[in-house]
């Protein structure tokens, strides 16, 4: 069961390396983890800024953006007089989704935390394939650069939603739809989006094979399956999801690329009339095929976002409640069940396309079924608090807030699971509120918890508790200020992707938005305050590198193996061979003088 270790992977050579080799082309999983983390945080911030610009437009439609608005002439194609155009709004919307998911949350949750923590937690010297690991980061990085570059090509970046539904995505950024814009055949928004996505998917695939091999092969002696921290389990299931769900989207991306570049018509039916004339396309394709391929990834992707977050929350709760995780085995089996079920629920994103009774019965059943393991996971995390001696450190605050916030996101998914009532809510702000609760105050809070939790291991110093709390409380309040009113707007029938947010209060585009349109300003102000509340975090991350309190090797008095290493961990991670003698969460064991019994100290 235990694997051989020693000089496996790239941890063998400790010769002096150039800065170039140690920081840019490093094969060390910890450096790659930090590379992923910093890049992903920059993208998260950038995706957040896109949203802030959109929220300005929603709250104050037709008014020039503050500060930057003055830079733009009234003739500017996207920001005439500093006012967002509908195309720019759609473009920011598409890129906000793409960047947050594929360049922000997944690379942070899987690429950064997975890379840094998983080999440490299983007692491995490095990942199984260090060079593939490096290639994975570089594919991700260049995919991100390409995605950013697409903002500056003629016509601007992709604007057909992060879902890029065909045929809109086929004709977008081409002269068929906008004859007056000088689109380049390759260097245009949607084409670059597709090429960048192919790079990002490749990166995830390289990462996933590496994670799976590492977790199966490189566990330290005594690290049996049921002694693995739940975080490792969560990453293992995530890796399988990426491995199996991403290839269909990669294929679909290449197919849409061929539709745009090579004259194929995988997703374009015959006889379309676009931009004042019949579309020149061979025709005969199916727009629905794109949706199936997209959501076959799209739904497992949700669990790619959530499972690592749950893993982090589990670690942080165990450490800070000073007791074993309640129902560890049920957590493990539930996360495996979630993994399997996530492959058979995708069509609940497509109830609107029209569906026969049998197909809909199947997808409604599986969708409701997947709520069961999710409930088990959340319940186990919740009950783990019972009987604890809870320390409200900053990571614990974020991890604890994850539970009700993710709970709200999960519960509001329930009405969307049932096809008939989903019709009343689909594509409204109710859905936007639902999945943002899952991902923003849910997953992103868990990621914050992880950053505060593992920062002392990475840098040797703690982040400031005071500024951590200054970060936490306004973030919690503002997140709810943004997303809670979305449920009201959605119930009223306000749909997503409306450039004017339903119109202005004095002259609503939609009468049905009239009763709830005033929330737009409140939500946007919450978003602006949320942005301000991230400043203490950003300063804390950088200032603590030099000014933080020195942490030592095991500052939280934790039990899992990453805390057995020197701080920061050297190449090869561990100074002595590790032998694991007990489960991952042996806190407050009766009869022990200390309230934690680390995995690296076998039972005496």
């Amino acid at each position, binding site marked *: 069961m235990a694997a051989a270790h020693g000089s496996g992977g790239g941890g063998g050579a400790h010769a002096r390396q150039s800065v170039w080799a140690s920081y840019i082309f490093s094969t060390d999983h910890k450096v790659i983890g930090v590379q992923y983390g910093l890049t992903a945080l920059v993208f998260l911030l950038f995706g957040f800024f896109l949203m802030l610009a959109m929220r300005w437009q929603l709250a104050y439609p037709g008014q020039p953006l503050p500060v930057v608005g003055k830079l733009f002439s009234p003739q500017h194609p996207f920001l005439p007089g500093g006012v967002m*155009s509908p195309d720019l709004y759609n473009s920011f919307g598409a890129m906000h989704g793409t960047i947050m998911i594929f360049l922000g949350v997944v690379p942070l949750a899987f690429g950064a935390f997975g890379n840094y923590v998983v080999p440490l937690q299983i007692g491995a010297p490095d990942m199984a394939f260090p060079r593939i690991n490096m290639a994975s980061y570089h594919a991700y990085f260049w995919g991100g650069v390409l995605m950013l570059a697409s903002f500056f090509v003629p016509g601007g970046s992709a604007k057909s939603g992060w879902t890029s539904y065909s045929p809109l995505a086929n004709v977008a950024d081409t002269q068929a739809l906008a004859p007056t814009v000088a689109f380049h055949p390759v260097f245009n928004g949607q084409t670059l989006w597709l090429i960048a996505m192919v790079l990002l998917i490749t990166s995830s695939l390289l990462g996933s094979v590496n994670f799976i091999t590492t977790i199966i092969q490189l566990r330290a002696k005594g690290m049996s399956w049921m002694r693995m921290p739940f975080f490792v389990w969560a990453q293992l299931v995530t890796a399988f999801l990426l491995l199996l769900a991403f290839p269909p989207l990669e294929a679909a991306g290449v197919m849409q690329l061929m539709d745009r570049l090579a004259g194929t018509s995988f997703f374009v039916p015959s006889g379309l*009339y676009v931009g004042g004339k019949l579309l020149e396309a061979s025709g005969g394709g199916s727009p629905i095929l794109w949706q199936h391929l997209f959501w076959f990834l799209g739904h497992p992707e949700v669990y790619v976002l959530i499972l690592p977050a749950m893993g982090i929350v589990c670690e942080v709760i165990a450490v800070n409640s000073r007791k074993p995780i309640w129902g560890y085995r049920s957590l493990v089996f539930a996360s495996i069940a979630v993994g399997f079920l996530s492959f058979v629920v995708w069509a609940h994103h497509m109830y609107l396309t029209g569906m026969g*009774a049998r197909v*809909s019965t199947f997808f409604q059943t599986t969708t409701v079924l997947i709520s069961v393991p999710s409930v088990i996971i959340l319940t186990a995390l919740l009950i783990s608090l019972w*009987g604890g001696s809870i320390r409200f450190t900053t990571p614990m605050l974020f991890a604890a807030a994850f539970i009700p916030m993710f*709970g709200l996101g999960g519960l*509001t998914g329930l009405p969307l699971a049932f096809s008939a009532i989903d019709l009343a809510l689909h*594509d409204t702000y109710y859905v936007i509120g639902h999945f943002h609760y899952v991902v923003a105050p849910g997953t992103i809070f868990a990621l914050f918890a992880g950053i505060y939790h593992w920062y002392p291991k990475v840098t040797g110093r703690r982040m400031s508790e005071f500024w951590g709390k200054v970060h936490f409380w306004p973030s919690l309040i503002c997140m709810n200020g943004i997303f809670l009113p979305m449920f009201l707007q959605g119930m*009223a029938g306000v*749909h997503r992707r409306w450039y004017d947010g339903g119109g202005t209060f004095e002259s609503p585009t939609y009468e049905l938005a009239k009763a709830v349109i005033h929330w737009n300003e409140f939500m946007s102000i919450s978003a602006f305050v949320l942005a301000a509340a991230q400043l203490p975090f950003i300063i804390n991350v950088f200032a603590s590198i030099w000014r933080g309190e020195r942490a030592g090797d095991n500052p939280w008095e934790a039990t899992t193996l990453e805390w057995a290493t020197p701080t920061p961990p050297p190449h090869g991670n561990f100074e002595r061979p590790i032998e694991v003698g007990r489960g991952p969460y042996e806190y407050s064991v009766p009869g022990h003088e200390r309230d934690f019994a680390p995995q690296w100290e076998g039972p005496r």
Partner: protein
Amino acid sequence: MINRLLGLPMNASEHGAQIDHMLELVHWFMLALFVFWGAFFAYCLIRFNRRANPKASYYGMRSHFSTHAEISVVIVEAFLLIAFAFPLWSARVNEMPSDRDAVVVRVIAQQFGWNFHYPGKDGKFGRQDPGLIDAQNPIGLDRGDPDARDDLLTINEMHLPAGRQAIAHISSRDVIHNFALPHMRIAQDAIPGTSVPIWFKPIREGEYEVVCGQLCGAGHYSMKAWLYVDAAEDYQAWLDGMAARQLAPAGGGPSPGASAPPAGG
């Protein structure tokens, strides 16, 4: 009651009452779970913080509290599926009224507006051909087809009689749109290359907004139509008025220019 608190728009279709009923039930269930779990969560944070409970328990909770809670959730969800969700959806797709008993309309979406195609007195829709689409003929209706002679077209203005079943065939001539009628609790993607029928029965006279619910391009946010649900005689009067305006006097076929639908809604 929760529906009203959350601001669900007034229902105006026959089946909408059942949708609202289920939505109400599901929200009560969600609220119960949130309050129950929330109370447990708050109690844990207060009772088991470090000051209140300096020594953690290795065993934690020993009762079967969670198993009971989880099984209850499963039972309620299964009940919601079997008693409500399945039958409601079956009614949507399997109990489509016959064309004789219903008003049948074709809805053809375009960037950025809604075309409504009525079959006229003969009850038959004329042939459509994308090659015939131009500014005067937004759906490419072949006026040479005998079935098309009495067909009526409107843009962004749909009329239906109250109290009669309506069947709408939803399609699109360019990209995917979504024909969403929040007050009728109905929505269907308009997918180019396919035509999907939906049905509902408007029961309340009034003016209702038609929303485009799927991103369709720069003008998506303003792609709006009105649905007028009229009393039966008003509906007939509207049809007659449209026929008088759009169709040439009886005898000769309609002149090409006469088929232009009124612009805007």
